[in-house]
C-alpha cells in the first residue's frame, strides 16, 4: 500500500498475522528444531568472535580473556606527565572544571613561592571518581592534552573515600597513554609537548614536577621527615613487587594494605594526621600547601593514609600487560632521575 503525503509517498506494509494458517503444534516444533540446531552448533562448534557470526559461543571468559578495548574507550580521567622530565602537562587552566557536567573536578592552582603569582601548574587536583559520568568532555576540551580518559575499568572498591582521587594518584606517564591509545596520542603529540615546553619555562623550581611518581621515587628521602609513608609504603610495595597474575596478587595486596594501615596507625599516634598532607605539599610548594583549606588537608591526609584502595594504587587491578608496561616506565623514570 502506498500513501501520498505532502512530503512524498510512503510505502506501508501490513504485517502478516498468520491468521489463516492452521496451528497444530508445527510452529512449536519449528522452534524446537531451531533451538536444537543452535545447541548442536554451540556444543560442537568453535567459539566465535567475528561480527558476522550468529552461531557458536560468544562468551568471553572475562578475567582470563579480555576484549581488546577500543582506543577511544573512556573510563575515568587521568592526568599525564612527561616521562623524561617528570613535568606535568596540566597547567590548571580550569577548562575541564568548567565543562564537567557533574562538576567533579576541583583544581587548586600553584602559586609562585616568592611572588605569589599564579603559575601554569596545578597544586592540587581532585577528581571524584564516584560521581564522574565518564562523558569525556574534560579530555575533549583540554587545550594542553593533559587530561585523558583511562582504560582501566576495574575500579571496584569498598573504600569510598578513596574514590576522591587526588593528584598523586591521577598521574600517569605519557608513555602509558601512548601505549593504550597510540594513534590518538600521535595526533596531538607534537603540539602537546611543545605547549609543555612553553609552560615549563614559566614554572619556577619544582612546581609541576612534584606529584605522582615522586612519592614512589623520593619517599625514602621523605621518610625521616614524617610518618607520611603510609601511601608511600603501599605505593612502593605496589610498584616494585612483581604481580604475576590477577588472582595471586590478592594476598600480597592485602598484606600491603595491612602494613599500610599499621604504619598509618603508628603515624597517627606519633603525630597529627595532617602531617601526611603537609609532607606531600611541603615537597611541592609551601605556600601552595598553605592555600589548601584545613578541611581539604584533612581529606587529603586521610586519603593519603588510606591510599591503599585500588584507585589509590594505580594498576592494582589493571590488566597484566598494562601493569607491566606501567611499571617498566616507572622504573625507567626512577633510574633517569637517580642519575
Amino acid at each position, binding site marked *: 500500500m502506498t500513501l501520498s503525503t505532502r512530503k512524498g509517498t510512503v510505502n506501508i506494509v501490513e504485517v502478516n498475522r498468520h491468521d489463516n494458517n492452521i496451528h*497444530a503444534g508445527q510452529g512449536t516444533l519449528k522452534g524446537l528444531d531451531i*533451538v536444537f540446531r543452535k545447541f548442536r552448533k*554451540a*556444543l560442537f562448534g568453535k567459539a566465535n568472535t567475528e561480527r558476522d557470526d550468529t*552461531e557458536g*559461543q*560468544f*562468551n568471553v571468559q572475562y578475567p582470563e580473556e579480555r576484549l581488546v578495548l577500543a582506543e577511544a574507550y573512556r573510563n575515568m580521567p587521568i592526568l599525564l606527565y612527561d616521562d623524561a622530565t617528570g613535568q606535568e602537562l596540566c597547567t590548571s587552566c580550569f577548562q575541564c572544571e568548567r565543562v564537567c557536567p557533574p562538576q567533579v573536578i576541583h583544581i587548586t592552582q600553584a602559586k609562585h613561592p616568592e611572588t605569589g603569582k599564579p603559575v601554569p601548574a596545578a597544586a592540587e587536583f581532585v577528581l571524584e571518581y564516584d560521581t564522574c559520568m565518564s562523558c569525556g568532555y574534560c579530555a575533549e576540551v583540554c587545550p594542553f592534552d593533559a587530561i585523558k580518559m583511562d582504560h582501566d575499568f576495574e575500579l571496584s572498591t569498598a573504600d569510598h573515600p578513596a574514590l576522591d582521587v587526588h593528584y598523586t594518584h591521577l598521574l600517569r606517564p605519557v608513555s602509558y597513554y601512548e601505549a593504550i591509545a597510540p594513534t590518538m596520542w600521535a595526533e596531538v603529540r607534537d603540539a602537546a609537548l611543545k605547549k609543555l615546553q612553553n609552560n615549563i619555562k614559566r614554572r619556577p623550581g619544582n612546581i609541576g614536577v612534584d606529584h605522582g611518581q615522586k612519592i614512589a621515587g623520593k619517599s625514602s628521602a621523605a621518610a625521616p621527615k614524617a610518618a607520611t609513608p603510609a601511601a608511600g609504603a603501599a605505593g612502593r610495595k605496589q610498584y616494585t613487587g612483581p604481580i604475576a597474575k590477577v588472582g595471586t596478587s590478592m594476598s600480597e595486596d592485602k598484606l600491603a594494605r595491612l602494613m599500610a594501615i599499621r604504619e598509618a596507625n603508628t603515624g597517627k599516634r606519633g603525630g597529627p594526621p595532617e602531617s601526611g598532607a603537609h609532607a606531600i605539599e611541603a615537597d611541592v610548594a609551601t605556600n601552595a600547601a598553605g592555600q589548601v583549606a584545613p578541611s581539604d588537608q584533612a581529606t587529603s591526609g586521610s586519603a593519603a593514609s588510606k591510599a591503599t584502595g585500588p584507585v589509590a594504587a594505580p594498576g592494582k587491578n589493571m590488566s597484566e600487560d598494562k601493569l607491566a608496561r606501567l611499571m617498566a616506565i616507572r622504573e625507567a623514570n626512577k633510574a633517569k632521575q637517580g642519575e
Partner: protein
Amino acid sequence: MTYWPVIAVDAWIGLVLVSIIKVTLILVGGSLGMMFLTWYERRAIAYMQDRRGPNRVGPQGLLQPVSEAIKTMTKEDITPLDADRVVHFLAPVVMLGATVLAFAVIPWGNLFPSSLRVGVLFIFAVTGLHTVGMLMAGWGSNNKFALLGGMRGVAQMVSYEIPLLMALLPIILLSGSLSLTDIVTRQGDWYGFGWYVFSPVGLTAFITFFIAALAEGERTPFDIPEADSEIVAGYLTEYGGMKFAVFYLSNYMTNLALCFIMASLFLGGGNGPGVTALGTVLGGLLSLVYFFIKALALFFLMVLIRGTVPRLRVDQLMGFAWKFLLPIVLVNVFSTAIWVAITRWGPQAQIFTDWFGEPASDNYLRYGVAIVVTLIINLLAVYAVMRINRRQPSDLTEEEIALGLAG
C-alpha cells in the same frame, strides 16, 4: 504366647539394615541426581542460547550445585513475622517427603528398591501430596503472591493429575499389572525393543503423559506457580536459604522421578538390545546405562522445551488440560481396549480368531490390524478435539472476533 508368633531376630535386623541401606542409597542418589540435573539443565540451556553456563567450580562446572548447596545452607533462615511459623516450616518438609516416598518404588534400570504390587498408583498418590505442601507454603507465608502461586499451583496439579493418571491406564491395560516391575519386564520382548511407546496407543499415551508431566513437574510452559514475571516466585516468594533449597531439591527430584517413570513405563526401562543376553551382572549394568540414557534424553527434551516456548496463561492452561488432553486421553483408553481385544482375545471372541488366527506374539496380522484400527481412532480423536476447540462462532463478524468479543 502363641498369639504373637516371634520372627527370628536376626532376619528382622537384616531386613531393617537392608531397608536402611536402600533408603540411604535412594536419598543420596536422588539428591546427587538432582544436583546433576540442575547442572545439566543450565549447561544445556546455555548452549542453546550461545552461552557457556556454569563452568568455573570443578571440572566443567560440575561442582557448581555443591557450591550453591553450601551457599543456601549457610544463609540466614528467615521466617516472615506474620507467617504461620509451623506451617511455613513444614511446607518444604511435606514437599520433600512426598517426593522421596515416590522414589521407594521407582526402578533404577532393572533394579527395584521395593516391589509394590500397586507401584504405579503409589507414585502418583504420594506425589499428589505435593499439592498439600504447596498450599501450606502459599498460605503459611502470609503473602499475596505466595497465596496466588499456591492456589494456581494446586489448581494446576489437581487438573493435570487427571490426564496424567488417565494416560497411564493404557499401559496398565497393556501390561495387566499395576506393578512397575511387571510393566518393565513385559517390555523386554522383541530383542529388548518391546517398548510400549512403539504402539499407537502407547505413543499417544506417552505424548499426553509427557505434557501432563511437564505440568506436574512445573516445567515450562506450565511453570505458572512460579511464574517469575507475574507473581514474583509464587509460593516460594517468602522462602530463602535452606528451606528454598529443599523446595528446589523436591522440584528437581520430582522431575527426575517423572523422567524415570516415563523411561520405565513407555521406553522399556532398562530394556534394550543385549540386556538379557549378557546375564545378570553385566546385563544389569547395561540396563542401568540404557535407563539413564533414556531418562536424560527425556530431561533434555524438557530443557529444550523450556528453552523454546513461552508460558501459558493460567486459564489457557486449565483449558488445555480439560478441553484438549482429557478427551484425547479418554479416547486413547478406549482404543487401548480395542488393541487388547484384537491382540489378546482368543476364545472370548471367536470371530477374531476366525479372521486373524490365534492370539500369539508372532501373529503379525493381529498386530497390524490393531495398529491400523487404533491409529485411526486416535487420529480421528485428535482431529475432532482440535476442530471443536477452534471456536468459530458464525454469528459474529470478523472484527468482533478480532476484538475479543467472541470470548
